């Protein structure tokens, strides 16, 4: 067993030991965890990201839900321990299906089992990779002049330039982008553009934006997976590339930016590994909607509710975001990235992005 594996196994055992001891001493067994809610994330000045605050909640056997989650925890502990010992690994989805055989402890949804895996990360301060759990591939990709080396499944190091050695869909970001698996070797790029939608990613690729402006394009594929956020952070930290985030202009896209730049609520325990505090939001901003006279849709009831929730979200508690959110509420409109095509297919690469990047000081 490796050192990480040893640490993972012993911290999993500690959880079981604590439950055992509580029962043995006649207490109602429980686990205490930080509350994973919007109201319990705090800015961590040391890392410049948002992390869980001090509020905790108890998962106690006093209630059926709590008791069942504790029982599931015991089953998961046993399953993970066996997996580590057998040198196997499984996807989160596989773990969910394995619970089919756990009778009373069976998960009622995959969300529940994913959440429990995260709970264990929080309690043990390990990563789910240490437990040999991985997410499903999500297909996010990179195109741009950056050279990396990746350990392939046969254990050979492959050197790949993400512009010259890849097809049209780019370099697929693997689940594990940690150093033992992936090294960032060199780059001629000047900055990173993280793009929400596939359509806009393809437009920038087709228009040769990466070569013309020396950019690395990252497709976020909606709300970005951990590995996508992690690789962006590494490019930013290790290669000193500035990062800009280019999304639709709607409340949900604001949250995508927040999870790239500030940390997501769900993974706030590892924000310092995943978030890029210097990332900047390029658009579509609420003011773009009027400045560029973009085609729009009316905000739905859900959109409005989401915006109001963001006004209470500590991550958006600054002047810039307050202004954006309030402007959008006032306009009562939202716009897609691809609405820029109103002015022709080249408008986004010839005018919109260069203008904005210059204003931000990324392009000189």
């Amino acid at each position, binding site marked *: 067993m490796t050192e990480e594996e040893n640490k993972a196994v012993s911290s999993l*055992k500690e959880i079981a030991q604590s439950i055992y001891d509580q029962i043995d001493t006649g207490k109602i067994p429980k686990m*205490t965890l930080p509350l994973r809610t919007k109201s319990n994330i705090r800015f961590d000045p040391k890392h410049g990201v948002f992390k869980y605050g001090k509020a905790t909640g108890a*998962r106690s056997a006093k209630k059926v839900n709590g008791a069942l*989650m504790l029982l599931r925890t*015991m089953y998961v502990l046993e399953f993970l321990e066996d997996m580590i010992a057998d040198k196997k690994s499984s996807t989160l989805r596989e773990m969910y299906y394995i619970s089919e055989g756990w009778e*009373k402890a069976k998960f009622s949804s995959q969300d529940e089992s994913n959440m429990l895996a995260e709970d264990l990360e929080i309690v043990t301060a390990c990563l789910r990779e240490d437990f040999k759990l991985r997410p499903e591939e999500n297909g996010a990709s990179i195109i741009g002049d950056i050279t990396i080396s990746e350990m392939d499944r046969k254990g050979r190091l492959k050197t790949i330039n993400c512009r010259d050695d890849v097809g049209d869909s780019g370099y697929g970001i693997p689940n594990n982008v940690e150093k033992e698996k992936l090294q960032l070797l060199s780059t001629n790029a000047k900055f990173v553009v993280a793009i929400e939608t596939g359509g806009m990613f393809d437009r920038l690729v087709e228009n040769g934006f990466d070569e013309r402006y020396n950019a690395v394009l990252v497709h976020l594929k909606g*709300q970005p997976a951990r590995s996508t956020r992690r690789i962006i952070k590494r490019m930013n930290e290790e290669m000193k590339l500035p990062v800009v985030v280019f999304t639709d202009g709607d409340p949900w896209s604001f949250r995508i930016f927040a999870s790239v730049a500030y940390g997501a609520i769900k993974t706030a325990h590892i924000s310092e590994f995943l978030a890029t505090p210097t990332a900047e939001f390029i658009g579509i901003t609420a003011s773009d909607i009027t400045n560029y006279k973009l085609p729009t849709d009316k905000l739905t009831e859900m959109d409005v509710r989401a915006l109001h929730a963001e006004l209470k979200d500590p991550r958006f508690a600054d002047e810039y975001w307050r202004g954006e959110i309030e402007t959008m509420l006032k306009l009562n409109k939202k716009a897609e990235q691809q609405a820029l095509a109103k002015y022709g297919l080249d408008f986004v690469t010839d005018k919109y992005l260069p203008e904005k990047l210059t204003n931000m000081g990324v392009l000189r």
Partner: protein
Amino acid sequence: MSSIADELAKKQKEISVSEFFERNRHILGFDSQIKSLIMGIKEAVDNSLDACEESGILPEIIVMVEKVDKEEFRVTVEDNGPGIIKKAIPNVFGRLLYGSRFHAVRQSRGQQGIGISATVMYGQITTGKPAVVVSKTGAEDVAWRMEIMVNTKKNMPDVLKEDPFIWDGKEHGTKITYHMNGRYVGGKQSVMEYLKQTAIVNPHSRITFVDPDGRRTTFERATDKMPPATKEIKPHPSGLELGTLMNMSKDTKNKTLGKFLQLDFSRISDRLAKEICDKAGLSMEVNPAKLNLDDQKKLLAAIAAVRIMAPPTDCLSPIGANLIKKGLRNVLDDIRPEFYAPPVTRDPKVHSGNPFLIEVGIVYGGGLQKDSQVQILRFANRVPLLYQQGACVITKAIENTDWRRYGLEQRGGSGIPFGPAIILVHVASTKVPFTSEAKEAIATLPELQAEIELALKICGRSLKTHLNKRETKSKTRVKFEIVQEILPLIAQKSAKIVGKPIPKLSGSITKIMNVVWIDDAVTFEKGRHRVRVSIYNYTPTAQKFNLHMVLPPGAFDYKGLQFFPTEVRDDGKATWDLPKIASTERFDLNFALSGLNKDDYDENEIYSSGINPIFIIGAEPIPGDWDVKGMQITESEEAPVVEDEDEEVDYDESTEALNDD
């Protein structure tokens, strides 16, 4: 020269009752095609039930509806009643306002003698066909078959044909077949519903229905006991009206006022008659027929001023709590209601000189519709009322009751409540004050409404008790699942992971539960009710206390008994002195009841004493009026410690969606 008055006088002529009703058929309830079909059957079935009851025969009624053409139906109602003597047949079926019950002060379904002849008349108006009546009395060897029409001009029967007839295998009974235009439907106001409700309140009858598609439904008897025969009584003087008094004093056979008061009314004694006469300033000896209007008024005022005993009540025939429950169960079994509230039969009261009594039953849960208005079953003298629900005092009383207190939904605390329930109300009276001749709704008399509301509240309280009990039980059952199933698994798994023996659970269990939990069940097998009461001591200390139950008197079965009660009283109240039950231990009390029908006992009534009631779930503290011999109410010497723990936020119930997108 003739005046206008003379002209008018020529046009004024007597119209017969039949002619009047022919033109005003809605007064009798024949106002729509759907309703006419139901009304006809109702009149025939009411007559059959009345006739059977009066002669002490368990009713056996067959109703058949056949479709003749698009509009026309042939209806046959056959009973096993006493039969009608030949001479009386034409008048019973062919003459309106001919009947035996109009002048009698007693409870019966039919009162005026309009119903069945009106049915015959309505049939002949819409189809032109006569009714065919077959009847046989027990005394005769032959039955008579007659074709009868109503002569509406004269209000007399026309007998078109009469034949003697050998009615195979029939000892006695009557069968009427008539044709009528109508429409056959299902649903809330239908022949089926009417018969079903009739079966509920007449559990002594067996009713078979054959619908136009030939489908046969039989509502079996729920009891072989006839309802006690009702007695005829004299009118009660309270609430007497002047006109009635005047008529009675003219028609009486008694020659002195004193005798008239004593003999023509109920509850007036010699002494009371004298008191009334004194008050009215009239002599006991005066001839009542000779009283003038002024004297009559004085007499009435005097009657109102004296105290008169309530009327005798043996003229009323309540269904009784037991049989209401049986009747409901018999008919509603397929929807498996969760709870039958013990029905309430109130003591008789009086409205305008007529005794009446109210009965109420409530059925709850099971297959009953959850989010619609409750179903109201209204009955007057054991006859279902299907129409004019909104105009009926029963509905008013229900609307006027705050059902939110009894566990049903009701916006603003008035109006028809919502929830999975059926509310049954039976008004029995020597004279049910209907709003019209169609007898569809009962008039809103304050005395009636107040009595109905009282009965509803009593029944509502048992419903609420049941619902409370269910809620505590289900809450505890959830905890029971934790300590019985989940916690042992957690202990087992954690022990396996850390490689140690399985820890003892008692400490955790008692902290989670901290109650004595009583779980009980009743099963019926081989003619005996088996009762199991399991007592789980989930408190941290040993417990010793007494258990009490209310059982049907005389049913306790000592055969093969393991653990004996300290006492089983004649009234069925039983007491057990339970052994000391250690913390987290369980004690099972098993016994049997014998000699009961399956439905007679289905829910245990469990009480406890000698223990702080807040630590017991599944038994109520013993009521103060129990007066249990040799039992001291002792506070348990050491009340279990309530866990003193800071209320923490429940991690799994901070339900906020964690997804950022």
